[in-house]
């Protein structure tokens, strides 16, 4: 049995209170209770009296690092709590020169996986009282019932193949590092299956998905790789993408975004998780990842690097004769 996030809640509050009080940070980006016990919400606190509202539990999935962009033009440091996957997102923002490392105080949170709240909330367990890590499973105890849930079934997919359990960027850490092994190998079999479909079926599938898009831009707004100063989709003149809600505009938006973050996506999956219409947006990224692995020999395109596969030009090495 290993520690769960909740075990670190008190230490987190103590540390944040200290950092706010001694002036190390001017605000802290963490989690607070959301609409119910399955959905913790992001919370940004600036005063010590708000610190007791901060929580940590095994449902804290939201990637918080994008909020740092709200503070880049202000003096002082922001504090943030980051799991391994969140630290990749933070590296993305730092590598892209959008966030300066010395303006962030990172409290690292070693993580053995986050429970998929959308699956567990369906089980009728009521208000969650306690979660215990049983090794291969979590015991979730609610006021209406308890269930032991296999990690392979109830963690978020990205947690199963995660190889970044411990934050790569941190000023301090909550608890000891956890064993850094993936529960299963990264798997692109769903992408391969889709590649093998007849073109008409692929087209029908994606037409159905993009037709459902409501253009709320939640995917873009949570994405740590979508960090442009001004997004092309927000420019009114010239208007590159129309405001009308129709398939061609939706496709233009999603394909442009997918290609713009290709090779820069950190595989956090937040775009797909926050989509209110449940568009399988990560399939686009996984296809691009798979191609990058194959075509460019970069085995981990989701790890931010100064030298991006699609961010460099090496004329003499290009196999394309025309180049």
């Amino acid at each position: 049995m290993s520690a769960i996030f909740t075990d670190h809640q008190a230490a987190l509050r103590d540390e944040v209170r200290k950092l706010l009080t001694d002036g190390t940070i001017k605000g802290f980006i963490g989690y607070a209770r959301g609409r119910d016990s399955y959905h913790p919400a992001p919370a940004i606190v600036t005063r010590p009296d708000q610190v007791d509202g901060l929580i940590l539990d095994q449902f804290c999935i939201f990637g918080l690092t994008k909020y740092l962009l709200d503070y880049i033009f202000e003096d002082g440091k922001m504090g943030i709590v980051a799991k391994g996957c969140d630290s990749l997102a933070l590296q993305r923002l730092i590598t892209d020169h959008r966030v300066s490392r010395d303006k962030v105080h990172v409290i690292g949170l070693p993580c053995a996986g986050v429970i998929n709240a959308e699956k567990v909330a369906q089980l009728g367990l009521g208000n969650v009282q306690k979660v215990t890590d049983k090794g291969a499973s979590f015991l979730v105890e609610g006021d209406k019932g308890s269930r032991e849930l296999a990690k392979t079934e109830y963690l978020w997919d990205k947690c199963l193949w995660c190889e970044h359990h411990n934050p790569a960027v941190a000023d301090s850490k909550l608890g000891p590092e956890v064993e850094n092994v993936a529960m299963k190998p990264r798997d692109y079999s769903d992408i391969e299956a889709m590649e093998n479909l007849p073109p008409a079926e692929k087209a029908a599938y994606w037409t159905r998905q993009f037709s459902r898009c409501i253009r709320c831009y939640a995917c873009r707004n949570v994405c740590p790789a979508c960090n442009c100063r001004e997004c092309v989709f927000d420019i009114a003149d010239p208007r590159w993408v129309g405001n009308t809600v129709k398939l061609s505009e939706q496709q233009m938006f999603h394909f442009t975004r997918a290609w713009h973050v290709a090779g820069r996506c950190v595989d956090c999956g937040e775009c797909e998780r926050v989509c209110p219409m449940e568009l399988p947006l990560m399939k686009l990224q996984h296809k691009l990842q798979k191609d990058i692995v194959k075509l460019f020999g970069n085995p981990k395109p989701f790890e931010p690097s100064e030298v991006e596969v699609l961010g460099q030009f090496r004329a003499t090495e290009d196999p394309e004769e025309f180049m």
Partner: protein
Amino acid sequence: MLMTIAPDNLKNLLDKLARDRLLVAPSMEDGVTRLKPVHSAAEIAFDYSNTATSIKDFLFPQSEDLLRFVTDGTLSIEEIKPERAQVAFGLRPCDLASVALMDKVLLGGEFSDAHYQTRRNNTLLIGLACENPADTCFCTTYGYNPGWAGAADVMLYKDGDKYLAEALTDKGRELVGGPGEGLFKPADEAAGEAVKKAYAEKDVPFGKEVDVQGIDKILDGFFYDQYWDDISKKCIGCGTCTYVCPTCHCFLLTDEARGGQGLRFRCWDSCMFANYTKMASGANPRPTKKERVRQRFMHKLNYYPNRYGGSYLCTGCGRCVAMCPVGLHIAGVIKDVKGVKAHA
């Protein structure tokens, strides 16, 4: 007059209606149940708490062509009218209540919105009372309930192996006497009233947690409160809440012209977007998330009741509660402002 209709007859009726008008109904696609055009009753999902999207999509669509114009020396304008008849089936009480709120804005004043008016006239609304309110539903907060018929032309209540039906408008009575002839049977009035009462009194647990009473008055003096600073920090500025909301109705007008021909259309705007109310000069009276978040909740809970007499611009459908990626929703704001802490 109360009637009953058997599920098979209801499906027959919907199939019949789909032949000569656009049938809009809850339908499940890739795990999402939303209101969408369907070709037949076979595509309809009958087992859902609420749909991800609302009736607004079909009365006040997300984008709508208004007119075409030609400027080849002279100016000619051709108005585009949404003539197609539609029938929307399976509307929940929150959406039926929302139509009445939208009517006040778009039809209630000195001028009425011609396109909205045409769609309202052309659309038959068939409501379906809620058997299982979701844990995000709080319609009772506003005085609505799981059996609330609102703007429905015909209201249906699932009653055992059949539906209790009530035609509430001329359009509804025309449906029952026209395409529905022979499909409805008279119901026992007393038993039918008991069914309606049971729906009206059905428990909506989340509704009990949210007390909206008097919040319009509290907000009169709340514009400059620190609270808006605190909660707006976590907003990510997406349009989810406003786009799934059955009552948000801000829109943009755009002219797109090329080679002497052009189209004027409108599409929804969202007060959560950074370019909302941004002017041509670049100036924006709502420059940060604070002003934009405040706008949304003040509009719903203060400006609207002040302007339109009493009711709030929210029906407790719970879509923003369920779908806001950061848990910044109207039920939480009501609780906060009334002093019950729900946000950090």
